[in-house]
């Protein structure tokens, strides 16, 4: 299940960043090169991940302010979602 969430979260990030999944690395920071999601895109990504988390654990949510943290990388993002999913 953790692996499924990881795959799905990376797919969401790739979709919002317009990147190919093969070019994504876990250490890439969402805001920085090469992903380069800006605050608007991160707010919209938060809405998508919020719906995904709520489908797994309705008591939890995802905030745009959580995704806008300057040091948030791909790994921390899928770990955050796994934690919120209660797995």
């Amino acid at each position, binding site marked *: 299940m953790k692996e499924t969430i990881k795959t799905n979260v990376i797919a969401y990030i790739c*979709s*919002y*960043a*317009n*990147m*190919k999944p093969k*070019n994504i690395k876990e250490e890439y920071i969402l805001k*920085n*090169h*090469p*992903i*380069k*999601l*800006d*605050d*608007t*895109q991160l*707010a*919209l990504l*938060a*809405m*998508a991940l*919020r*719906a995904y988390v709520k489908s797994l654990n309705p008591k939890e*949510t995802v*905030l*745009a*302010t959580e995704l*806008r*943290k*300057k*040091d948030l990388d791909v790994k921390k993002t899928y770990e955050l979602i796994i934690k919120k999913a209660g797995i």
Partner: protein
Amino acid sequence: MKNNRLFYFLFLSITFPTYGQDSTFIKINEWFTENKFAIRQTFDGSKNENKPASFTYQEDHESPNDFLIVDIALKISELELLKNSNAVLIFYPKIEWHKSTNETDKKNKLDGGINFEYYPLGLEKNAIVPWFQGTSSFKRNFIDEVYEKKLAFQLSLSGKKQFLPGSNIRDSKDNFRARYYPYVGIEYNHLPDLISKGVTEEFSAYFLRFFAETWILPQTLQFNLDATYREILSTDTSLRKSLPILISSLYLYPGKQESFGIGFEYKYGYDNTAKFQLIQISSLKLSWKI
């Protein structure tokens, strides 16, 4: 010219040695990051928020004078509401300082206010969605010793698919190359002593704006274009009604980082941040973004 040389010397001596792993600037950067501050050129509610804060040495084409400009804005924290809904609503306070010693565009303003962003729809069921920004600015104008007020509300669009507004436009190697946003908005201004001493200019305006950033060299060379057409709706002001302005800038970020850089900016049009007069200015900038 002497001052130009001084600027280049300062740039070379301050900027390039700072990219070592443990430089003072990197430590300062990390401190701001850890304490959740953001520093930019402005938080005026537009994608100007992508522009770095800058310390500028300028040449005015209209006069032989050279001068200094500072544009720095601090976003302190973000308060998010609607945490369990299908929308995102965020408020944040800001503090800004804008100073220019240019005689034809003189300013020294300390600005505080609260901005908000509202995203009513997501992109999972829609190809493109609207989003809104509101800004409030209460400024101390130290030149005229008055307090100014400005309120603005604007709409933009964002999508995921390549070439839609707000999407990341990439090349065949997946390098990020460009992004753009269109805006339409309205604003209210309360500006004492703008034209005549003792007379307050109070007016509303609508504006159309286009902002684009392009990375000519990924992570190294950035070109920004910011075009605004502003039309004053009120009839009881002696200001010109039609106020277009174009700002283009080129930033170089050495060392595969995007926190510190040097930029060149060209600005032509009616400057709404000062006296709404026609300006044509080229600038060299030291920039800092966190």
